[in-house]
């Protein structure tokens, strides 16, 4: 972090708005992507969470039904697709989550982790591509949801990982989120199988190593406005697969 107090003020405001819930859309995606590698920001968030949590005292508690606990217990005791996180041995999810910070130029180790997963998700391509492919794993804290592979400059392939069908009447839409501009749609992703996404009409420098990708939930057929309208559910960073 820089020592600039102006910067510090802006960071604290953004942390406050994140906690309040008014930081939305692409701003929230970028903020959450920065959190894993930014302890100062995490601390600001935690301090604001405590400051504002007094609001909750205005509410009379509503006793949850026992069935709710049973559902929670079932979910946490059934073997999860990925192991629970522990401080000593961070889970694959946690380590890959860290790789989200790559777009800000971080951590070669995290790159290695993402590439490793890329290798796990796709068997080595045969024949090998002539130029290095770009890959990204789009995920939420609970695990990966989509694998994106860009074997050549003009096309991306998007594959669902695991069972995450969009709710009925909704579609998943893929976006590339430039650092200082509005997200650009790459199109709607199919519920199953590989979705080919043509990249011909995009500015050439948009899809590159370090670019942030995001998947939002949209009305069936995709966003009616050309910008994300639903919650952003999964994010990931493109890295070169060598």
């Amino acid at each position, binding site marked *: 972090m820089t020592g600039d107090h102006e910067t*510090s003020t802006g960071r604290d405001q953004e942390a406050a*708005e994140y906690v309040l819930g008014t930081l939305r859309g692409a701003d929230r995606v970028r903020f959450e992507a920065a959190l894993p590698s930014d302890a100062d920001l995490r601390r600001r968030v935690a301090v604001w969470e405590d400051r504002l*949590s*007094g609001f909750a005292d205005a509410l009379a508690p*509503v006793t*949850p039904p026992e069935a*709710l606990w049973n559902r929670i217990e079932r979910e946490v005791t059934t073997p999860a697709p990925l192991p629970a*996180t522990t401080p000593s041995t961070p889970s694959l999810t946690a380590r890959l989550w860290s790789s989200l910070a790559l777009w800000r130029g971080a951590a070669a180790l995290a790159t290695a982790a993402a590439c490793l997963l890329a290798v796990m998700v796709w068997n080595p391509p045969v024949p090998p591509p002539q130029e290095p492919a770009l890959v990204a794993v789009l995920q939420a804290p609970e695990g990966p949801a989509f694998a994106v592979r860009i074997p050549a400059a003009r096309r991306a392939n998007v594959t669902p990982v695991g069972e995450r069908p969009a709710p009925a009447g909704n579609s998943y839409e893929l976006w590339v989120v430039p650092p200082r501009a509005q997200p650009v749609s790459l199109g709607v992703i199919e519920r199953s199988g590989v979705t080919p996404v043509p990249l011909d009409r995009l500015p050439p420098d948009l899809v590159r190593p370090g670019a942030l990708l995001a998947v939002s939930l949209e009305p069936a057929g995709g966003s009616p406005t050309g910008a994300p309208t639903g919650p952003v559910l999964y994010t990931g960073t493109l890295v070169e697969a060598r």
Partner: protein
Amino acid sequence: MDAQWWPSYLRPERSIPWAGRARRNSEFPLVAKPTEAAEDGQADLIRRCADGDSRALRALYDHHGGLLLALALRMLGDRRLAEEVVQDTFVQVWRNAGRFDRAFGSARGWIIGILRHRALDMRDRERRSGGPPGTMEIGEAELAGAIEGIEPPAFEDRGALRGCLGELKEGPRRSITLAYMDGCSHQEIARHLDQPLGTVKSWILRGLSALRECLER
């Protein structure tokens, strides 16, 4: 960090009340903790979750479940959705327990933060798909209750928020309350209060700044 990275209304070149305040980026004035022993106990429960002890998750559920369900109901206005969000929250607490850092803040604040962002996502999703009737309507009575109805505080620091909210002008106070308690976006608050979007954004920034200053006194 690049100033342009921020949303336009947060850019520091704008005239904002926090600019030029004391430089304290290296000292975080922590909010006073509710009885240290109780907080230690809660943080220990999260650590035990990270170690795979589901009894610790049950203890957290017994302690916070009622409050979380009440908050989710308030934000979503629908029992089924609220229970779904509470369920999801405890699953996230379980899976992410290793990331909780007790040096930064309380267990309660951390868990409420998870719940509120889950509820915001659910709220967005339901709004896109039409949502069940009666959901997400904001009643003036409820809104007033959120401020005046705050019960005698269990801990000194939490009561402080009520006092500090009372020091805010009506616009910032209502805007921040709508955002926190009802999960409203800037646009929804502007519509609800019949104010320009820019006014609401500035009320929220100013109100948060004043709250921070008041709570640090």
